[in-house]
Structure formats: structure tokens, C-alpha cells
């Protein structure tokens, strides 16, 4: 399904659903696209929720340029909801998407029903080595991010999704990002300053206990800033929790969003 935001075409998957009730917006991480959400998107669509698994501007099939500030993505999210005719939505974000959800809840409280933050850290510092490689569109940036995003166990596979090798899946998604997009995203994460942000909506935090990108301690730090958040910890799971533990992540979202 296509929308128009700021004069640019924006793609969002509806998870094969057509329902219009209680919208859920899924927001992907740095350099990724909507396809990381395929399983939860299809689940909630089947259960009668309106689903938008969006490609952020400049990502996936969406036109436009990647933003350089998380706050800009948060405000863009509000304009996307306008374009979709949605007054209020739950926003589910992974990694950079979790920052966008966090900022959206802080800046557009009245438009936000709930947030679910997967693999999160506020702030979200990015190592200079990764930023430098991404700046020159060096494949080493993809290798670093992809390697660090999977737990030691995940490096050897054993995926619940039959036949899927998650390391290459993550690599291919990042390879599809247009030049400069991954660096813009990582820079936006690195620069996000939310010291003064206040988030008061109901929140879920999903933490991978073997997450090297946004360590468990950082996720718990985010939780400490939220009023009575629900926390779900996934033992031995890395940052790429949607591919490492698809069923457990969906269970966490389902229990929170029912």
C-alpha cells in the first residue's frame, strides 16, 4: 500500500490485512526495511488490527531521503499517520525504530496509544569504527553491524523459521540500503539526545540478553525512564531478535497489544 508524505511516495505493508481497527505502526531499524516485520504484521492483521509496516523515507521502496535526526523521523511519523487517516496508533520499533517510537511518544503524546521498544537503548551510541565504515559505504560496516547483531549462538543458526540462514538475511537487507542511508541512520541514532524527553504511554521493552548492539543493561535503563513498563527478556538472544526468536517476540507483542 502506498501513501504520500511530504510529496514522496511511502510504502507500507499491511500484512495482507484490510482491517481498520486500532492501528499498529511497525518501524524498522537502521538500513533495514518493512520486511523484518512480516510475521508480526501478518499476525496482527489476521487478528483484525490495521497494520502499517512502513519503509522509512529513503528506505526500501519509499521515496525521499533518510532523515538525519530521530526527532525528524518522529515528526514524519505523525505526518504519515495524517496521510493514512489515522488519529492514534501504537508504534512498535526495533533498534533505531525504537528511538523513533520513543521520540514519537514524547513529541506526539496524543497520537500515540502505546509503544513497544525492541532492542533499545537511549541514548544509542554508535562506535566510530562503524560510523566511519558506513560513511564510505564500505561493506565492512554491514559485516560489523550484522555480526554484532547476532548472538554467539545465532552465528551458527538453528533458526525456528525452517531453512532460513539469518546472517545472510540481515546482510542482504543492509546491502539493499541506498548509498549513505545506513550512515545517516547510524548518525541519527548516535546523535539522539533524549535527556529531556518524557514518555508517559504504556510501554513494552523487549531485551535480548546476548544483545551486543543494545545491551540488556541499556534496555533496562530505558525501562527505568518509563512509567510501569512491561519488560520481556529473551535469554541468549541477540539484537536481531525478530529473526533469532520470532515466536517469542510475537508472544511478547501479542500479550502487550491484545
Amino acid at each position, binding site marked *: 500500500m502506498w501513501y504520500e508524505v511530504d510529496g514522496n511516495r511511502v510504502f507500507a*505493508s499491511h*500484512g*495482507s490485512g484490510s482491517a481498520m481497527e486500532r492501528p499498529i505502526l511497525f518501524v524498522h531499524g537502521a538500513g533495514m*526495511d*518493512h*520486511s*523484518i516485520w*512480516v*510475521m*508480526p*504484521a*501478518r*499476525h496482527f492483521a*489476521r487478528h483484525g488490527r490495521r497494520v502499517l509496516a512502513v519503509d522509512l523515507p529513503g528506505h*526500501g*521502496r519509499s521515496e525521499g531521503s533518510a532523515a538525519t535526526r530521530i526527532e525528524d523521523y518522529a515528526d514524519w511519523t505523525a505526518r504519515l499517520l495524517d496521510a493514512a487517516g489515522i488519529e492514534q496508533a501504537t508504534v512498535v520499533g526495533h533498534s533505531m525504530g525504537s528511538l523513533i517510537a520513543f521520540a514519537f511518544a514524547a513529541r506526539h503524546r496524543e497520537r500515540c496509544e502505546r509503544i513497544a521498544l525492541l532492542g533499545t537503548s537511549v541514548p544509542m551510541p554508535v562506535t566510530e569504527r562503524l560510523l566511519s565504515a558506513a560513511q564510505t559505504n564500505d561493506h565492512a560496516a554491514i*559485516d560489523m553491524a550484522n*555480526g554484532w547483531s547476532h548472538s554467539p*549462538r545465532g*552465528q*551458527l*543458526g*538453528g*533458526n*525456528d*523459521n*525452517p*531453512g*532460513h*540462514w539469518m*546472517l*545472510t*538475511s540481515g546482510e*542482504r*537487507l543492509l*546491502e*539493499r540500503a541506498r548509498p549513505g542511508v545506513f550512515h545517516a541512520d547510524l548518525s541519527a541514532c548516535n546523535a539522539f539526545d533524549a535527556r529531556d524527553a518524557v514518555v508517559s504511554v504504556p510501554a513494552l521493552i523487549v531485551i535480548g540478553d546476548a544483545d551486543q548492539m543494545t545491551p540488556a543493561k541499556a534496555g533496562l535503563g530505558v525501562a527505568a525512564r518509563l512509567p510501569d513498563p512491561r519488560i520481556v527478556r529473551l535469554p541468549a538472544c541477540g539484537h536481531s531478535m525478530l529473526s533469532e526468536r*520470532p*515466536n517469542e517476540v*510475537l508472544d511478547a507483542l501479542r500479550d502487550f497489544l491484545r
Partner: protein
Amino acid sequence: MTRFDTLSLHAGSRPDTATGARATPIYQSASFVFPDTDFAAGLFNIERAGHVYSRLSNPTNAVLEERMAALDGGVAAIATASGQAAMHLAVTTLCSAGDHIVASRSLYGGTHNLLAYTLPRFGIETTFVDPRDVDAFGRAVRPETRLMFAETLGNPGLEVLDVPSVAAVAHAAGVPLLIDSTFTTPYLMRPIEHGADLVLHSATKFLSGHGVVIGGVLVDGGTFDWSGSTRCPTLNEPYAGFHDLVFADEFGPAAFITRARKEGLRDFGACMSPTTAFQILQGIETLPLRMARHVTNTQHVAEFLESQSGVERVRYPGLASHEDQALAQRLLPLGAGAVLSFDIAGGRAAARAFIESLTLFSHLANVGDAKSLVIHPASTTHHRMDTDALRAAGIGEGLIRLSVGLEDVADLLDDLQRGLRRAEKAR
């Protein structure tokens, strides 16, 4: 990142959570119990990860599939009943009646038969081109072309495919490149790294390595931009067989392999037995060790044959006399495979005498066994091809194909020497 030899042993497997079994168990079960009704519905709707029914997926097969995806650099793989089933699955996932394929003319005889004679009955036509003429692949493209196909090493001529160049031609035309990598395995070449989009194997051969099972694997590189091509209607148009799902819209890099499993494996049903998957996994554990020995032995055999007066011509890309040696050194740095062919002086009669006098080389229709094998293509694997097609594929009356095994190479050379002496008497 974990390296190839380690992935050959570990990728996709973990000790069994129920029993602690270190080897991958054979899950000999047709179906799998659902924890609840919503989970069951979720599995059917591709929103849950798990197994429903062993035609669609099976835990043992899933380990093999994941391991092959890891070794070939793909996003996912599907194990099939045979290599031909993998080929059929790839074609039918992308092609419908009225569609067209461009393929190398130097192919395994069974694949040539499928493309030349069987698929046309279902409205899918193929144009065959010289695999060394890269531009010919592009010239053969029609508006209805959906796929390009070739083997890493032609059969039985051992032409080395210039995968990067053919991939560039395919992508310029907006079609994916499917490669049969049976002769090379991911140990010798990973075609996806060179630009191919899809890879298939007859796992019967070097992957299982011992000539005891029939199986195939289809690997999706996740590299092709399905939604960016106008030539991929099966992935870009609503599929009535799955509630109008548009696979490229939802599954991104895994669009092809998802449709292949949810349609082709489901409806055509050419799945692999989990016992077969277990046996192939045993073979893959030693793939790097075996392939290294295979190619070393083959190089010795090729050089030996080339030095014999009763041999007119040896075709092996590891030889300086082969037209593609430079390409082989670039694309196959660890070796040019373990299959070679040669023309024996004296034609069919000499070939017959040679084959029937061998002791260690078994006369049978297969390659990739730990034991050495021999065959006469014109009368066996390629007998369905007419004279013109045989000539175009470089298959003459005296052509003999060897699959060099893991024996002591000195014993193999002795066996071949005896055969050549017998052939000389038959001339």
C-alpha cells in the same frame, strides 16, 4: 564471521533440546503438534516459525537447508526430493505457461530433456545458447523471458561459466540467474558471491558424497530485486492460492524462497525424506576434506591422461590445454572440480573396451561418489539428445566422463593404464 569448514559442521544445528543428542536427529514424523489453535493458524498464515507437515518442512531437513544456505551465502534454502526436483521447483516458482528461459546448451542430459522436451508441453520454452558466448544469453531474451540458467561447469564438456558476466547480462535484462552448482559445491565456488541469484544442487553428488541417497537443494541468494523487475509476475502479483499474497511486497529478500515453499513444495510435493537429509548432513560435515582430495586426485588423473597416446583430448579446466583455465583459476581457485572428460582414440568401440576393463572406476550414471566412476555419455546420460544437440554440446562417440574419487591416485592411474591398453587393442 564463522568460517566455511566450521559452518560445514555446525551451521543450522544445535544439540537436541529434548535429549541432548549431538547429531541432528532424524525427525521421522509426518506432522507436528500445534501448541494451540491460534499458533496453528499462525503457522499456516506465515506469521509463526515452526513445522506443520513434513512435505512443507521438517526439523531434520531444516538443518540441511540452513547449512546449505550458510555455505552458499543464501538467505534460505529448500531441500527437495532430487536435484531435478530442485530445478523444477525453481522453474515453476518463476515461470508459467507462455514464459521463456534462456539456458546454456551444455547441461546435464536430464536437465536438457526437462527444458527441451518436457517443459514445452506445459507452455514453457527454452532457448539454448553457447555458455562461452556471454552475449548470446542477452540476445536470446524475449519479452516473456523469466529466468537464465547454466551450470558452473558444463556437462560433460567442463566449460567454466563466466558467472559474473552472465549475471550482469541477466540483471541488465531484469531476470534472475539460476546456477546448477552440483559439480563444484560451495567449497569450490559460491555462485551467489559472483552475482548469481539462485543456486541448485543435486545433493546426491559431492554434498552427500557417498552415492547412497537421492536429493536436491535450492538456495535463494536474496540478491535479486524482485519488486524492481517487471519480469517476475509470480512474485509481484497477488497469488490466489494464498489469499492474494504478493510475496515481493511482504517478504523482501526471501520472497522467492517463501513462494517456492508455500506453493511449489506444498502443491508439487517433491520434498526430501528426513532420513535422506540426515545422510546428506553426514556428507557435508566432511565436504571440505573430501573436495580437497577430489580435486587433487582429479588434477593428477587429468595430467596423466593428457600424456597418453591413446587419448585424443582431455577436457579439464585445471589443465593449461583447456580453453577456460584462466577463468577457472579466477572463479575456482581451490580446484576445477572432480569431473573430467576425454576423447579416447578409436571411438565407441575403444570407449566400450576401456570402460569394461576398469576395476576401480565403476561404470554407472552418477558423479560425486567417494569411489571413482566412469560413463559413456553419448550412449547413456545424453542418449536422448539428437546428433546435432550432441555435436553442439561437444559429445562425440569416443567421449568418456570420469568422476574421480578419493582412492590412492596411484591405484587410479594403474586402473586407467590398464583400460587404455585394452582400448588400444580394440581399435
